[in-house]
């Protein structure tokens, strides 16, 4: 199986789906002539031309709204944000329009669109550019929130997202763009709403997503050398949440640590922790611990930023507390 980057996997997904369906088009800042601010859309303009690969002005609210309505009209737009941090100026369009129009119309319209771009901290770009907004959007009932951690899922989930008849919030992570792994060629669809066990273990369950999956895996590696086998669940889709897999795992391990980059207050891990105590109270041998970003804005200084973010060290520490 070919080994490609997360970035190339995303590119493949978009190109294959555009090949498949003329209603699919991509728009965003620098997606066409510049070949993508992060090169995810590289080569698409040459392949599909300016009708379907469209450079926009710096107007996230405007072009997001455009895409919402184009979707209700039957097209399948892919909106690229240079980073999800810029989605804040399009919040009304995402939440009130993409997120409510079908319901408010009594189900008359479909909104088959994908909004995608990178997110996350660790890049020393400060407080305005480092958001991880999955919990914000997961709070909107009609929005589906996907956060792939590996190249195969980046491709398979993006292809599924483009084919979905519903609005999909597709949150990539910049520090994963150069991550390389095996990715199936051609048709490869990953089911939306299904988590995946990325490492099996019997002593404790780590529940993570996106870049935090890699932190959890690193922590599991460290613990393995100390005789502790951690199971690592990559949620892949934040909402709908695959609690079946979480429950199945915790029934075996009876212990859990949640690893997320959201700020702690009402991060997605708070929801998962609630559900674990609500549905699996009797299965637990210890309280669940969440390892999230600290409750502070993202600092520029590298030492401070590293201190703020969830790390494999913090995960190890939390696991030891849960196992104690």
């Amino acid at each position: 199986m070919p080994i490609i980057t997360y970035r190339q996997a995303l590119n493949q997904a978009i190109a294959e789906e555009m090949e498949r369906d003329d209603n699919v088009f991509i728009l965003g800042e620098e997606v066409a002539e510049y070949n993508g601010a992060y090169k995810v859309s590289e080569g698409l303009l040459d392949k599909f031309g300016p009708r379907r690969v469209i450079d926009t002005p710096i107007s996230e609210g405007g072009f997001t709204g455009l895409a919402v309505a184009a979707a209700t009209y039957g097209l399948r737009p892919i909106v690229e944000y240079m980073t999800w941090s810029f989605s804040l100026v399009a919040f009304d369009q995402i939440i009130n329009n993409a997120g409510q129009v079908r319901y408010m119309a009594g189900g008359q319209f479909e909104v088959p669109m994908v909004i995608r771009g990178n997110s996350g901290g660790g890049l020393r770009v400060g407080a305005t550019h480092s958001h991880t907004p999955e919990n914000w959007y997961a709070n909107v009932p009609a929005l589906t929130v996907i956060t792939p951690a590996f190249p195969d899922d980046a491709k398979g989930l993006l292809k599924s997202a483009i084919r979905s008849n519903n609005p999909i919030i597709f949150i990539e992570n910049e520090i994963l763009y150069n991550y390389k792994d095996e990715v199936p060629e051609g048709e490869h669809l990953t089911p939306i709403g299904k988590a995946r066990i990325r490492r099996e273990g019997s002593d404790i369950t780590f529940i993570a997503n996106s870049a935090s999956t890699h932190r959890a895996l690193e922590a599991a590696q460290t613990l393995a050398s100390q005789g502790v086998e951690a199971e690592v669940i990559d949620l892949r889709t934040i909402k709908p949440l695959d609690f079946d897999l979480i429950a199945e795992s915790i029934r075996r391990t009876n212990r859990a640590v949640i690893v997320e980059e959201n700020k702690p207050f009402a991060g997605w891990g708070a929801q998962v922790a609630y559900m674990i105590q609500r549905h699996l109270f009797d299965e637990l041998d210890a309280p669940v611990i969440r390892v999230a970003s600290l409750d502070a804005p993202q600092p520029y200084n590298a030492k401070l930023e590293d201190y703020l973010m969830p790390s494999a060290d913090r995960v190890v520490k939390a696991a030891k507390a849960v196992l104690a």
Partner: protein
Amino acid sequence: MHTVDKPGRLKDSSSSAPQPAALPALTRDQKHGMLRMMVLIRRFEEQAEQAYLRQQIRGFCHVYSGQEAIAVGTESVINRDDAVITAYRDHGHALARGMCPKACMAELLGKATGCSKGKGGSMHFFDKSKHFYGGHGIVGGQTPLGLGLAFAQKYTNTNRVTLCYLGDGAINQGVFHESLNIAALWKVPVIYIIENNLYAMGTSVARSSAGDPLVKRASGYDMAGIVANGMDVDDVRAKTAEAVNLARTESLPSIMEIRAYRYRGHSMTDPRKYRSKDEEEQQRKRDPIEIYKQRLIDDGSITEKDYDDIEASVGAEVKEAYEFALNSPDPELEEVFDDIFAPETQIDEIERRPKWSYGD
């Protein structure tokens, strides 16, 4: 009744005289139909106000009285398969689009038979079959949607156009300017129709918007800007025809500013303390329905008796709509979870409501 000014003497009309030559002459039936639709909108809204006072309509209810010539005149020069989208003062546009008064009234009463199944309410009317794309509650939020509808029309080579209505208050939302810029850059066939009813809720246009006329905003984007007199349905019609022609034949966007007067408050809960009774009375002297009625009588298209017949048939239709709404059922409680997600057709169905509840 109010005294009627001739259109040529309207004080704040900055429009030139209507140019009926630009349009095919209306048949007697078409004129009759336009007058009847304006009356229908007015009486529908009066019924809505009554139902609101009886607390049968809850929440916010923004009535269109005084602005009927805008919805009816603009609608009269587009095709059934063109798209229309507006803000929360949407009853008039919906009716002018040909939506069923019964379904509209039922929506106001929150009933399952409503045009949005009782889930949208006054501000969120929709009818896909009529190419009516809402009914949007956030000021200015519909302006990029109008852009997107027209974009999709162009992308799919339909030769259709989109009318996107907004109020004078909405022109100060940033997303409207983002939309104008994109519309002009990409030559998107959307017509933005600013319904300038002189008040952004309770803030007069003079206190709310720099630049007069408001349509001057078009020039910054190299777009056509067209002003019409919203109290004169023929003027609205003629001016809209110019804008539609630009969109249809050259795929060019434009902005229209159509001036009218909102007879009632911003919404039903607005006591209108920011303006005088005298102002309201003066404005009502140039009532769009009275003006058009008199014009049709003068040109021999209708008689007073015809007008009385219109009032009688509209009265019956509105009464029937109201009774239909009253007698319709509420949605079932289980329906609260319906219409959130579209069924999947290209991928396996996504399990949305697993046995694990997110809440209690």
